[in-house]
């Protein structure tokens, strides 16, 4: 008689999401755990798919500027900027340098706000609420600056096709510089905390190490990749807007752990502070907008890439000659980084999982897409509205 040892089939799965205190947006993760150690991880995205890409095809070029700005609540300016840059290439319009500089100014202010927001959330995930409260208090400075500059705290609506809406006045310039000085001082403090606080380092140093090869293989982008030593930043690789006139220094760390991700993001704040001061001192003279922007854009296609706070934002825009785009395809950085969370969490403690997840600075509503499944024969199984409705009725009728 032979004894067959069958592997344990049943797994203890800890579900995180779609509603969970660790997630600020809905996503569903299933972590199989053995005691406290994660043995398997899966993700299901798509809870906040809003059909924006499809919606863009039913709006004209100008209306879409406002639509894409609402893809992300944190990096709203970046989406509008990417879209505007792409459309301006299609329309063969040259945007005045002053407008480009102001666009970069707002983009960098937004980067500061986004990184500070992330910093607070990450500290909260680690259970360090004091740091969370302090960093968010300081983040208010940048929110006030953005409000003073654009009139809005979240969707700044700084762009128009062919330029920007507003100029920077002397009073605003002073407010920005004062705010930046204060934040620079605070950033020194935060960098000191994340690199020296022993208890915090216990939760970040050596946790979630992503090596350079893995980062490249998984196609990680943004600060997450730069923390693993990947020299990749669209602002440097393919300068857009005013980044050729105001170059940035790429911030890279090689450790690849959570601590490195904290350091990269905080050091990027210094670059943003420097760049903002430089732009305010050397704002090129000239107009804010082009005289005339065409209503219809001749047929063509364009790819527009921009470095958002979370990494590369990619837009593919196609025109068929009408006043509406034929196709707008958006790829946000979270989607590129999500694979790294799953592969990293295996082997780590359950307690580290929220930290690993937040380490990529995820933004779920940006990356959620509708998926159509093709069978192996290549036939699309498309559902009509009627069929979907009937399915819903039957589903709930049979459920009871």
């Amino acid at each position: 008689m032979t004894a067959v040892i069958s592997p344990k089939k049943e797994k203890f799965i800890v579900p995180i999401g779609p509603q969970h205190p660790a997630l600020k947006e809905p996503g569903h993760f299933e972590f199989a755990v053995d005691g406290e150690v994660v043995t398997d991880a899966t993700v299901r995205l798509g809870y906040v798919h809003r059909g924006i890409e499809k919606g863009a095809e039913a709006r004209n070029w100008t209306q879409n500027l406002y639509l894409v700005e609402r893809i992300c609540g944190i990096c709203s300016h970046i989406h509008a900027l990417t879209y505007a840059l792409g459309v301006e290439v299609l329309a063969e319009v040259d945007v005045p340098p002053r407008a480009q500089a102001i666009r970069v100014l707002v983009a960098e202010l937004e980067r500061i706000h986004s990184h500070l927001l992330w910093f607070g959330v990450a500290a909260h995930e680690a259970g360090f609420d004091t740091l969370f409260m302090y960093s968010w208090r300081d983040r208010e400075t940048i929110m006030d600056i953005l409000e003073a500059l654009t009139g809005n705290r979240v969707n700044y609506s700084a762009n128009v096709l062919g330029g920007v809406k507003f100029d920077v006045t002397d009073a605003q310039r002073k407010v920005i510089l004062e705010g930046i000085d204060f934040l620079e001082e605070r950033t020194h403090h935060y960098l000191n905390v994340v690199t020296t606080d022993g208890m915090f380092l216990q939760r970040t140093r050596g946790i979630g190490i992503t090596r350079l090869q893995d980062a490249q293989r998984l196609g990680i982008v943004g600060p997450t990749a730069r923390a693993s030593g990947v020299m990749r930043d669209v602002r440097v690789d393919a300068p857009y807007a005013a980044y050729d006139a105001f170059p940035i220094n790429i911030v890279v760390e090689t450790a690849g752990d959570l601590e490195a991700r904290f350091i990269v993001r905080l050091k990027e704040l210094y670059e943003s502070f420097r760049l903002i001061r430089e732009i305010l001192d050397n704002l090129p003279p000239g107009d804010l907008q082009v005289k005339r922007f065409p209503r219809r854009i001749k047929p063509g296609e364009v790819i527009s890439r921009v470095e958002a706070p979370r990494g590369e934002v990619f837009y593919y825009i196609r025109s068929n000659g009408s006043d509406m785009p034929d196709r707008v395809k958006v790829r946000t950085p979270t989607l590129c980084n999500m694979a790294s969370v799953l592969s990293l969490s295996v082997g780590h403690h359950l307690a580290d999982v929220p930290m690993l997840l937040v380490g990529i600075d995820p933004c779920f509503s940006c990356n959620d897409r509708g998926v159509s499944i093709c069978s192996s024969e290549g036939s699309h199984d498309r559902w009509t509205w009627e069929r979907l409705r009937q399915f819903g009725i039957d589903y709930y009728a049979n459920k009871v």
Partner: protein
Amino acid sequence: MDSVVNVAALLFFPGGLFVITAGLFYEWIDRKVIARLQNRLGPRWFQPFADTVKLLAKEEVVPERVNPILFVALPLAALAGALTAALYVPMAGLKPAFSFSGDLIVTVYMLSLLTLCTGLAGANTHDRFSLVGATRALTQLFAYEAPFLLALLGPAIAAGSWQISEITAYTETHTWMLVMQPIGFIVALIGLMGKLELPPFDSPEAETEIVAGALTEYSGRGLAIFHLGKGVELVIGLTLITSFYMGGLSNPLAFVLKTVGLLIVLAGLQSLMTRLRIDQTVGLWWRYGALLVLVQWLILFVIQMV
């Protein structure tokens, strides 16, 4: 007459109403101080009372596939344990209501009943967050319990008695134990934080990982009672440590000043620290906590021998 006094001791003072009210008030101080340290406004003074009243008035949902008797009984057992412990400590600076030789050990284990009940309550439900939380709560119990007890036994050995009233009488007349046994004090203080699952030892209820830990399925009355139990335990823990290590509690004023002072120190510590993983908590206690308290004991024995 005697039985009337005993019933009053159980229901009003020092057990029952008094310690429950004190627990809620101390919880408010804790929350308020942390909030101020974190640049927040914090709750108004009656917030913990309001929360408790609201929870008590709410429906208690008993989830499927649990033992309903255990589900209802465990919070009661937890609170009963904490309230019983209140009878043996010098509450409000007065003499303990009941006292017998060796009541220190009984008190400490009555306090552990709360954690034990929390763990069992988590294990009773089929919720996955509760199960992980229960495992963590019980793991943590085994981590801090021994060092905490040993730290409380330090003053007991100096006083030559394991009876709380006698130890308190001893500490009142001698130099603060805080000065004589500083290591023991630190271990006892951090042990109390572990016992109460305060940050950084809050991994059994780490909301960013396992929602509310072992008590995830509890709502309404059960949750309120567990909550009250924790408040009571906070008061008793503070009373024990102040009476042992901070020169006893000779009158109600000394009680208020010393315990609130210690509570503010606790609040400061909580707001300074990052949550530890459960393996780090266990490692900390057995690698450093237990070792430190043993060093304290060694010093104690050497001094007593000389």
